[in-house]
C-alpha cells in the first residue's frame, strides 16, 4: 500500500442514467471494465447542487459552510469586488495541500475554483489554463498564475488545443448528420467545438504531467465537458419529455451520448499512461436529468439552470485495493477526500464531514483519524489579492453566459448585493442540509429580506423557522406565495410543507386535498401526500403515494424512507427493512430510515441487528427519544459486543435516563438580531437617499442632442490623471470631487475622485451632475458615457511599464523589484491592449473630442502641456497659467523607465 497511486477523475454532471445504457451497449468499454473489476454506485450530492461548492466539498471532505466556496462568484472581502470563486477563497486545505504536507508527490489539473494555481508538491494547473479563446486566431496567452510551478507552463501550453485544431471527424461523432445541416446558419456546433478544445487541453495537460512526472501518488483531473454539453444539448436527447423539434432531435439528439463516449475514451487513455497499478476513482458532483424529470421551465432565479442537476452523481473505483464487482452504497461527495486519504494510508480529519468508503476497499484496517488537517496542511493564502481582473472578468462572463450568475439586468441592480444575497442563500441551504437551522437562519433571512418577492428565498427561510419552532414567523415568511392567488400549485405545495413542518397536519391536508389526483403531481407532492397519510394512520394510501413517487423518481430517498415507514405500519417488516436500506443507499443520513429498520427488526426478533440500527440512528440524530428508549429497552437482550457498543454510547452522553437534550437555541433572539442588523444596514443606506419619485432613462440610440458638454479627465489608473485634475483645478476649472479618498503616499496631492462616477455603468446619467466641472472617469468606464451629450476627454498617456510598476507598487506597497519582471511585462502588455481598445473607441465616437496628453512631456515640458490644455478647453476657462505650472512637480515622477 505504501506506493499506491490514486488517479482521481472528475466528470462534472455525469449520471448513471445516461452512462449505464451506454456501458451495457458496449459504447463505454473503459467504464464497463471499471464496473466489472471494481466497485461502483451513486454519489449523493449536496443542495443547492452547484458545481463549485460540490467540487470543493469533494476536495476537502467538508461541507461548503466549512470550506467557504459558496457559489460561482463571491465578493472578495479585500477588494469589495465580485470575482469568480478562486482557490484563495477556500478556507481549508484541499486534498493536494494535505498530500503535499505529507511530502507526497501529487498533481491536480483543472479543478473547479483552483485558480490561482497553488504551490503543491507537484504540478497544479488551474481551470483558467484550459479555457481556449472564443474565436479562431485569437491570441491565447497562458493566464497568469494558472500553472504552478510556472516553469511547467511552457511545455503544457504547447499541448493546448484551439477551436480550429478540433478535428472535423471528431465533430462528426457528435453530429452524425452534419452533412445535412446548414452549418453557416445553425451555429450550435460551435459550442461542441469549443468544449472539445477545452476538454482536450485539460486532458493533454494531464497526460503530459503523468508522462513527465512519474513519481506521483495522487493525480486529480477534472473535466467540465459532460456538464457543459448536457446544459447545451440534453434538451434534444430523445426522451418522453423532449420538447425540441424533430429536426433538432435528429441533428443534436446524440450529442450527449457522444460526450460520454469521448470521455470514456479519454479515461482509457489516462489509464494507459498512468499504468495498471493505479487505483482509479471516477466521480461526478451531481447527476443530470435526462428523463421525465427534466425541468419543463427554468425558474427565473439566479443559477436556475441548476434545476437540471440531479441529486445523485456517479462513483466508480477499480484497481489495487478496491473490491471487484462491488456496489458502493450511501456514498456522498464528502467521502471522496477521506477515501483517497484512506487509500493512501493517511488519517482522516475528524472535522471532515465525509467518511472513507471502506466497504469499497479491500483494506481490513479501520481508517485512522486526527482532529484536523487544517493546522498541518497549508491551505490557500487568502490575504493575497488576485491580480488579473481581465481573466476574472472572462470567467465571470462565462458563468453569466451559462446562466449560473445573474447579471444586473436593469438600472440600479447591484452586482455586489446580488452576489452577497446569493452567497448567503447558498450558505443557508448548506447549513439547513447539515441540520443546523439556527446557524442557517441569519443567512436565509438576509437573502429573504433583500429580495422579499422571491418565493424560493421565502420558502427556505420559512423552513428554517419551522424547524426552530417559530411557526407563526414561518407562516408570515411564506405570505408571498399567497400573493399569486389561490390557484397556484407551487404555492400550495410550499404552504403544505411548512404546515407539515409546523405540525399543523389539518392545514397541510387542506392544502394538499385540493391537489389530489393531479396528473402533474411530481414525486415531491406525492411524498408530501404520503407523509400526511402516515400522520393520519392511513397506511394503505401512504404506501400507494410513496410507490407512485418511486415510479416517478426511483432515486428519491425520501420516497423509499416513506415507503419503509408505511410498510412497517402495515406489518410487512422484511419489505420495510429492504425499502429503508434502499433509502439509505441513496442518502445515508436518514435517522428515520434507521429507526424503521430497528423497529422492523425488533418485530422480527433480530435483537442485535435492531439495536445496531438504533445505534446508527442515535449517532446521526442523538435527540430522538424513540431511539434512546428502544436502545435502553433492548440492551439487556443484546449480545455482549452489541451491549458494549451501547454502553459506550451511553457513557459518552453520561446519562441513562433521557436522550441528550436538543441544544438550547434562542431562535427568536437569532431572528431578531438578524432583523435588527438588516434594518440598521438599510436605515444607514437610506439615510443619505430620497425616494425616487421620477427617474430618467437614457436613450441609447439618441445622438448627441442634449446640448450639454462635459469635461472628462481619463487614463489608466496610475497614469497621472490626478495630476491632470490638479492642473485643471489650478487653472480655474472646478473639479468634481469628494474627499472620500484621502491623499496617501501614492498620491500625496490627492486623488480628485468623485465616488458616484464609479457607478457610471449602472447609471450613465450620473455624469449630468458634473455640470461645468471636470470629472475623472477611469478608462474602463468611458464606454458608458451616454451618447446624447458631447464630451471633451483629456486622456493621459504614460509609459505602460511605469503604469504597471506604479499599480503594483500601490497594490502591495512593496518594492517594484519584488515582482518578477515577467509579471510586470505581462501586466504592461495587458494594459497596452486595453488602452488601445479604449482609444480606438473614443476616436470613433463623434460626440467625443479627444486630447491625448503625454505624462512625461507634462513633467519635462509643462508649458507645452498647459498650452495644449488651454487650447483644448478654451483659454477662457484655464486662465491661471502660473498656478498650473506650480502644481506640476517632477519630483513626484516615480517608477520612471529610462528608455
Amino acid at each position, binding site marked *: 500500500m505504501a506506493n499506491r497511486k490514486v488517479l482521481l477523475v472528475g466528470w462534472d454532471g455525469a449520471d448513471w442514467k445516461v452512462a449505464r445504457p451506454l456501458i451495457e451497449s458496449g459504447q463505454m468499454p473503459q467504464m464497463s471494465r471499471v464496473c466489472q473489476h471494481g466497485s461502483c454506485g451513486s454519489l449523493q450530492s449536496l443542495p443547492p447542487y452547484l458545481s463549485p461548492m460540490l467540487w470543493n466539498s469533494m476536495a476537502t471532505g467538508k461541507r461548503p459552510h466549512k470550506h467557504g466556496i459558496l457559489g460561482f462568484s463571491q465578493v472578495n472581502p479585500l477588494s469589495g469586488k465580485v470575482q469568480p470563486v478562486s482557490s484563495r477563497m477556500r478556507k481549508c486545505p484541499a486534498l493536494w495541500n494535505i498530500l503535499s504536507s505529507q511530502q507526497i508527490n501529487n498533481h491536480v489539473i483543472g479543478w473547479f475554483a483552483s485558480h490561482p494555481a497553488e504551490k503543491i508538491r507537484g504540478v497544479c494547473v488551474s481551470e483558467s489554463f484550459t479555457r481556449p479563446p472564443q474565436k479562431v486566431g485569437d491570441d491565447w496567452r497562458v493566464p497568469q498564475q494558472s500553472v504552478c510551478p510556472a516553469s511547467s507552463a511552457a511545455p503544457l501550453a504547447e499541448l493546448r488545443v484551439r477551436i480550429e485544431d478540433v478535428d472535423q471527424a471528431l465533430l462528426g461523432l457528435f453530429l452524425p448528420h452534419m452533412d445535412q445541416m*446548414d452549418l453557416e*446558419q445553425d451555429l450550435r456546433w460551435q459550442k461542441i467545438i469549443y468544449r472539445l478544445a477545452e476538454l482536450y487541453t485539460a486532458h493533454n495537460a494531464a497526460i503530459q504531467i503523468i508522462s513527465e512526472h512519474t513519481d506521483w501518488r495522487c493525480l486529480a483531473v477534472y473535466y467540465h465537458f459532460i456538464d457543459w454539453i448536457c446544459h447545451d444539448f440534453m434538451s434534444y436527447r430523445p426522451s418522453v419529455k423532449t420538447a425540441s423539434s424533430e429536426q433538432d432531435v435528429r441533428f443534436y439528439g446524440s450529442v450527449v451520448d457522444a460526450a460520454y463516449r469521448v470521455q470514456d475514451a479519454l479515461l482509457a487513455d489516462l489509464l494507459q499512461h498512468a499504468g495498471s497499478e493505479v487505483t482509479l476513482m471516477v466521480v461526478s458532483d451531481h447527476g443530470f436529468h435526462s428523463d421525465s424529470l427534466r425541468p419543463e421551465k427554468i425558474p427565473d432565479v439566479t443559477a436556475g439552470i441548476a434545476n437540471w442537476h440531479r441529486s445523485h452523481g456517479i462513483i466508480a473505483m477499480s484497481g489495487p485495493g478496491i473490491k471487484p464487482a462491488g456496489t458502493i452504497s450511501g456514498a456522498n461527495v464528502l467521502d471522496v477526500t477521506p477515501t483517497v486519504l484512506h487509500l493512501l494510508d493517511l488519517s482522516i480529519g475528524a472535522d471532515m464531514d465525509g467518511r472513507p468508503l471502506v466497504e469499497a476497499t479491500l483494506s481490513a484496517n479501520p481508517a485512522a483519524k486526527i482532529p484536523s488537517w487544517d493546522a498541518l496542511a497549508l491551505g490557500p493564502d487568502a490575504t493575497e489579492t488576485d491580480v488579473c481582473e481581465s481573466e476574472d472578468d472572462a470567467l465571470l462572463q462565462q458563468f453569466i453566459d451559462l446562466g449560473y450568475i445573474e447579471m444586473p439586468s436593469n*438600472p440600479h441592480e447591484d452586482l455586489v448585493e446580488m452576489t452577497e444575497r446569493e452567497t448567503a442563500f447558498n450558505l443557508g441551504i448548506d447549513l439547513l442540509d447539515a441540520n443546523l437551522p439556527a446557524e442557517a437562519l441569519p443567512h436565509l433571512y438576509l437573502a429573504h429580506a433583500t429580495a422579499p418577492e422571491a418565493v424560493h428565498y421565502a420558502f427556505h427561510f420559512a423552513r428554517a423557522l419551522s424547524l426552530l419552532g417559530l411557526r407563526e414567523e414561518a407562516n408570515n415568511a411564506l405570505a408571498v406565495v399567497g400573493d399569486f392567488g389561490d390557484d397556484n400549485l407551487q404555492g400550495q405545495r410550499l404552504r403544505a410543507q411548512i404546515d407539515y413542518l409546523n405540525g399543523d397536519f389539518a392545514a397541510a391536508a387542506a392544502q394538499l386535498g385540493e391537489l389530489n389526483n393531479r396528473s402533474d403531481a411530481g414525486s415531491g407532492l406525492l411524498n408530501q401526500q404520503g407523509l400526511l397519510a402516515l400522520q393520519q394512520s392511513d397506511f394503505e394510501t401512504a404506501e400507494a403515494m410513496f410507490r407512485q413517487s418511486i415510479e416517478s423518481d426511483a432515486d428519491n430517498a425520501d420516497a423509499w424512507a416513506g415507503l419503509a415507514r408505511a410498510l412497517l405500519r402495515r406489518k410487512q417488516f422484511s419489505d420495510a427493512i429492504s425499502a429503508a436500506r434502499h433509502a439509505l443507499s441513496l442518502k445515508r443520513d436518514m435517522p428515520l430510515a434507521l429507526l424503521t429498520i430497528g423497529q422492523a427488526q425488533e418485530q422480527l426478533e433480530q435483537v442485535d441487528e435492531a439495536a445496531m440500527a438504533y445505534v446508527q440512528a442515535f449517532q446521526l440524530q442523538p435527540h430522538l427519544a424513540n431511539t434512546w428508549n428502544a436502545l435502553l429497552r433492548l440492551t439487556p437482550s443484546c449480545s455482549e459486543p452489541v451491549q458494549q457498543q451501547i454502553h459506550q454510547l451511553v457513557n459518552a452522553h453520561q446519562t441513562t435516563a433521557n436522550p441528550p437534550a436538543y441544544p438550547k437555541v434562542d431562535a427568536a433572539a437569532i431572528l431578531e438580531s438578524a432583523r435588527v442588523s*438588516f434594518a440598521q444596514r438599510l436605515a444607514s443606506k437610506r439615510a443619505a437617499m430620497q425616494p*425616487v419619485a421620477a427617474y430618467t432613462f437614457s436613450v441609447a440610440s439618441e445622438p448627441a442632442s442634449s446640448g450639454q458638454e462635459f469635461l472628462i479627465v481619463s487614463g489608466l489608473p496610475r497614469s497621472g490623471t490626478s495630476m491632470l485634475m490638479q492642473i485643471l483645478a489650478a487653472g480655474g476649472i472646478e473639479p468634481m470631487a469628494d474627499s472620500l479618498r484621502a491623499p496617501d503616499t501614492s498620491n500625496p496631492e490627492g486623488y480628485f475622485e468623485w465616488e458616484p462616477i464609479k457607478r457610471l455603468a449602472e447609471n450613465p446619467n450620473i455624469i449630468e451632475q458634473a455640470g461645468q466641472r471636470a470629472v475623472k472617469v477611469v478608462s474602463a468606464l468611458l464606454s458608458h458615457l451616454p451618447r446624447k451629450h458631447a464630451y471633451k476627454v483629456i486622456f493621459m498617456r504614460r509609459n505602460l511599464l511605469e503604469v504597471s510598476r506604479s499599480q503594483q507598487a500601490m497594490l502591495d506597497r512593496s518594492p517594484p523589484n519584488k515582482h518578477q519582471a515577467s509579471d510586470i511585462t505581462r501586466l504592461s502588455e495587458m494594459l497596452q491592449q486595453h488602452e488601445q481598445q479604449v482609444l480606438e473607441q473614443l476616436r470613433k465616437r463623434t460626440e467625443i473630442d479627444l486630447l491625448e496628453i503625454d505624462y512625461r512631456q507634462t513633467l519635462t515640458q509643462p508649458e507645452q502641456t498647459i498650452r495644449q490644455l488651454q487650447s483644448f478647453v478654451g483659454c477662457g476657462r484655464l486662465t491661471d497659467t502660473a498656478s498650473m505650472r506650480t502644481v506640476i512637480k517632477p519630483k513626484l515622477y516615480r517608477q520612471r523607465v529610462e528608455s
Partner: protein
Amino acid sequence: MSMHAQPTIRAPWPDELARAWKFLASKELFQGEVYPLVALVGEPQRIVAASALQVHPDGEKGRLFLRLRTAFLDKPLASQLLAQIDKLAQQKGIQSIGVILAESDPLHSLLLRQGFSSQRTDEWWCIDVPMAKARAGRAAELVKRPKIAADFSRCRLDNANLDEALAIAAEHGLIATERLGNREIIGAPSNSGYNPDLSVVVRYQDSIAGVLLVRKIDDTAFVQARAVAKRFTHLSNQINAHFMAHMNEPQYHLLSYILFSAQPTVEKETIALAKRFTGRKIASFSQFVKRPVLAYRPLPGVDCSPC
C-alpha cells in the same frame, strides 16, 4: 416590530428600484422620464404591485406600465394605486394615460372599473426565419420576372425617402402623425427606431408605393408597420411579393424570428402576409385608455408578460 399589515403605496427607494423594474418585468421598455410607484406589504416589505408612468415627449400623454399580484386585484390596494397614478398624472400635466395588456391579463376588468376604455387590439404573428426562407426565396425569384421587375424596385429606408415612407404609414393610421419629420427614428440600434436594413421601401415607377417599417429587437425583426400607399392598393400583390423578397436578404438570415404586429380590423392584408409566411398568431394585446386617445404598438420583450 411592525408587521406593516396595511399596504404602503409610495415612490420606491433607490435600493428598491431594481426590484420594482424586475416586478414590472419590463426591463427594456423605459425611455425618458418615468414615474414609478410601488405597493408594499409585510415585513420585510415586499412589492405586491408596481407601476411606472412614462411620459411622452409632448408632456401630455403617458404610457402606464402596471402589474399587480393576483391576490390584490380585487383589494382596495388596486384602486388606491390607480388613484395615486391618476393624481400623479394630473400633477405632471398628463392628459391621457394608455395601457397595453395581453389578452389574458387579469387587469382588464380592473382597468374598466377604473374608468379606462378599450381602445384597440393588436395581434402578433410570428414566423420562424428558417421556415420563411423557402417562401422568401420563391418571392425573390418571382419579383425578377420581367413584368414586375420593369416597374418595381426596392431600396432601404433612408433620410431621402423617410418622410414619404412615414406618410404612407400615417395615411393608414399606423404611426402617429407627430412622428412625421422625425429623422431620429431611423437607424437606431435599439427598439426606439426603424432598422434601415430590415425596413424596406418599394417603388413603383417613380413613386413610393409601399413601405415595411421594421425594428430589430434582439434576434427578432419586428414589423411595426406594413403599408401600401392608398393609390397603389391595386398593386398590393406585387408590393407584398417585394416585401417577402426583401426578407430573403442576408440580414434576415441572421435572425430567428419575424414578428408582424397588426390590428385585425384594419390591417387584414398584413395578417394575410404573415399567414402566407406560415406565421402563427402568438399573442393579442388590448390597449386601454383613460381620457384622450393614444396609439402604441405593443413591443416584444416589453408587453408580453401578463401578471
